[in-house]
């Protein structure tokens, strides 16, 4: 059973623990500039929004790659970049409609979220559960529950 990263921006405080955890997991260095998840701050609205790859089924990046360096990890559903195959052509960065695959100057390869092999470091590091890792078929569960609770109230009233 696959799981998905599930992001609830309302809970995000903008602490960047997720960015640090991602960089440590993938590079061994605490370095948000190399994180595959990014928190955006919309200052005048007071909103913080973590954003990363949603692992599209028909992944644009995967389809665009001319050397077949981006492949499905059957265990997790992640579209994973194979550094030993990637030639750094960046076509995937153009193809991705969401901008979540990016070039890394240090490695000469592209990088994107790979779900950390099924135990995403960002979700583990998030102090407010703004990022969780949940059943891929039920990412709407919390929201459904919230609406269900309201419906219940309406009936009893």
């Amino acid at each position, binding site marked *: 059973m696959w799981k998905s990263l599930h992001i609830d921006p309302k809970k995000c*405080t*903008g*602490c*960047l*623990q997720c960015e*640090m*955890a991602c*960089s*440590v997991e993938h*590079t*061994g*260095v*605490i*370095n*948000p*500039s*190399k994180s595959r998840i990014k928190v955006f701050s919309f*200052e*005048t*609205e*007071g*909103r*913080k929004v973590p954003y990363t790859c949603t692992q599209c089924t028909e992944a644009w990046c995967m389809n665009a790659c001319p050397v077949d360096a981006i492949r499905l990890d059957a265990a997790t559903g992640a579209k994973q970049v194979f550094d030993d195959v990637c030639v750094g052509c960046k076509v995937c960065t153009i193809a991705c409609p969401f901008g979540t695959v990016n070039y890394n100057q240090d490695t000469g390869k592209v990088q994107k979220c790979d779900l950390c092999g099924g135990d995403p470091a960002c979700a583990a*590091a998030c*102090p*407010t559960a703004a990022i969780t890792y949940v059943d891929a078929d039920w990412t709407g569960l919390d929201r459904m529950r919230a609406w269900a609770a309201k419906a219940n109230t309406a009936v009893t009233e």
Partner: protein
Amino acid sequence: MGWNRKVLRVDLTAGTCKAEPLNMEWADEYLGSRGLATKYLVSEIDPKVDPLSPDNKMIMSTGPLTGTMASTGGRYTVVTKGPLTGAVACSNSGGFFGAEMKFAGWDMIIFEGRSPTPVYLYVENDKAELVDAADLWGKSCWETEEAIKHHHQDPLIRVSSIGLAGENQVLFACIVNDLHRAAGRSGVGAVMGSKNLKAVALRGTKGVSGIKDMKAFMKITNEKKKILADNAVTGQGLPKYGTQVLMNVINEIGALPTRNHKDVQFEDAGKISAEAMHEVRPTDGKPQLVTNAACFGCTIACGRIAEIDKGHFTVVNNPKYWGASGGLEYEAAWALGAANGVGDLEALQYANLLCNEQGMDPISFGATIGAVMELYEMGVLTKEQLGTEAPFGSAAALVRLAEMTARGEGFGKEIGQGSRRLCAKYGHPELSMTVKGQEFPAYDARGIQGMGLAYATSNRGACHLRGYTVASEVLGIPVKTDPLTTEGKPELVKAFQDATAVFDAAGICVFTSFAWTVADVQPQIEAACEGDWSMEKLNAMGERIWNMERLFNNAAGLTSKDDNLPPRLTTEPAKTGPAKGLVNGLATMLPEYYKLRGWTPDGVPTAETLERLGL
């Protein structure tokens, strides 16, 4: 090692930027940030230097835990000789600027001299250059940050800057980073302004790679984050209410200084409290508070993001203030509000926004207005002088004077000198609620006795962040002590002062100390830094930092006479509340404190003390 081992030295007079190795012997004795930067300062400047002259230096420094996953590891410190006090000035700030300095590969930036023309420092990893800032001079902190990002076509740059207050050398000007975080106290922004340095812009992509034992570090920082999450103050109170959780608490115990400390309880405290910020406004159907927010790496997230009432008289014709921005913290709400008898929450938020926008310490500004209003009510200051009527409680006067002070207009110039100089000029030095020239924060020393001693002996002038005995005397952390007695307070103050110096030197936020002791910080330092970092060593280091600052102040010309409180706190009893009838017992506590510190009765560290601490 948690350090990058690299210092950037910027000679503003010559216009040069040079890299040099961090003095690792000093790092081993002073750790980082407040400790290490102060060691550099006291080793490099004459203590008698005029703080606003080119001979003063200004140091921006991180600690070894800055830019790491240790919770709250985002702090940086500005150390210089302060223009408000003539003592060591040391102000730290959260936000994201400090971590960026580490990511760019530096531990510390030392500014010396004075640039002939306005400049800003731009750092991109190893590259550092001074850039002409002629077109930024005259801009606010908010405009400056935006303009620099635009100029470099890089939205990821982090900026610290001064606004008009720093340019005009308002003696309580601060340095603002990330729009609404600030190295707030002691006038560090005026020093930056005196150097013609408008801003520091950083971009770092190297990260922190030198953690001694990354696996152990991740494990221990996770354990310690859990302690913060499970603690009632850091896990619930601060995220929900922010520091403003204190407004009603401190008012109830009769320690909320009101109307320039004439009273110790404010009848409108509820109207300017955390609870009020959560209340839906009848005018627009929204609460003032939008959300909480975290600084870099912080798992507490006490920051307030607020939205002012667009229809309020202060902003009704000024849409630039309508968006969400930094909201009121307890100290600002007190200083702008209770200290002046102003109970209009929206007016306080507007004054708070002005302070963030133009880089002004809301504590010292608000407390100075308290003195202005008292002098106005006494007839010493007049409407003609001030340009406005200014009785206690006037929100209109508060915001008008805030605008004038930030912009250096009219009487605002005199307010910008702080309350000590202002009260002395108008013949009433006794009405200045300051220690060493710096205005009190939000705790009345008659209702919380230990704070009187903490204020009087604070090395940077009156301050709550050097020895926050409120934690023990009011909140019972780590143990409850009676706020109304002086007994045991000298030990308590010394212990808090020394421990706080350790938190500050590490590069983390002192708010963690609601849940952590030095024993919780120690293993995090141990895992990050090379060398031996035992409890004994850290405790001695905290005390060493305190004494180093004291030695600098003594050499700068301060004496035990400056370890005092205004007569109002020691001779005029509190009128209401649990402390009714009490004055602060500083005279009882001070000699005992000196003795505990190993200082002479004149407040000078003895030779034995210096030797014991390796000074």
